[in-house]
């Protein structure tokens, strides 16, 4: 697909934070729109349910509105459907712990230190390191 070189060059320097923010914002408004469609409701109906002006809700639905959690919860409440989902805390913590250990082990390898596969055993990632390498044999 054709891409413009000047846009491509600018894309390279787009901060991750902007990338994620715009994508998520569009995800949120598309999700709200999907629920409205499922419930056969219009943006005007949503505005009425929220006690807001239609123009305000219409502005939200353009794709880059910075929704507050309070507003999202209120929309979820009046529509009766979830819009955003928070990732389970325990799973996140476990994954982050594994990543921290892997990072630490790689740091040791980079410093020229030998590490043992057994060091990683507790984290059930041993298989990834089965192939013998100068450092992991």
């Amino acid at each position, binding site marked *: *697909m*054709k*891409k*413009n070189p*000047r*846009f491509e*060059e*600018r*894309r390279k*320097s*787009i*901060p991750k934070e*902007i*990338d994620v923010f*715009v*994508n998520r914002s*569009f995800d949120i*408004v*598309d999700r709200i*729109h999907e629920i409205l469609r499922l419930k056969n409701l219009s*943006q005007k109906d949503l505005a009425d349910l929220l006690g807001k002006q239609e123009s305000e809700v*219409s*502005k939200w*639905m*353009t*794709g*880059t*509105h*910075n929704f507050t959690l309070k507003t999202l919860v209120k929309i979820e409440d009046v529509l009766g459907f979830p819009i955003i989902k928070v990732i389970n805390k325990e799973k996140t913590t476990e994954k982050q712990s594994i990543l921290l250990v892997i990072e630490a082990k790689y740091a040791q390898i980079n410093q020229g230190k030998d590490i043992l596969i057994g060091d990683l055993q507790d984290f059930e990632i041993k298989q990834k390191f089965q192939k013998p390498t100068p450092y992991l044999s």
Partner: protein
Amino acid sequence: MKKRLEIELFEEHTNVNIYTIRFKNESSEIEKFLDKFPAGCKFDRDVSIIIKVLDNIGKRGALERYFRYEGKFKDNVFALPIEDINLRLYVIRISDNILILGNGGIKKTKKYNEDPELNSIVKQLQTIDCLLKTKERQGLIQIKGKQLLGKLEFEIKS
């Protein structure tokens, strides 16, 4: 005086073909916009957001609800209504699958028509939009999916 212009393909995306306008012997309208706000300028963040919004539109479709009418309801000239940025980029939304990028600038006034630069950009897009509708009615251009077909060279009064 008449000015010659061409509608040219700028980028292709999954669901939208993005075109722009090029007046004879000039940079394209979107290039003029990028020239005004080069990388590293104080509006760099705003340009990044605009590009990301266009990427999302390219992926999801140029749906009417993603745009804000600028000018008259009878035309297809819209602004990308991005919150919390100081720049405005104007476009002609032909369909859910075809978008034509125009020029834009810094939003200094509440309404575009209070600013001579933005007003002139919007008026020019309205003229081009009107011309495209006429050419389509005459069968000289066709809209087929993401494509604008036919002779995409025109003349408008400047």
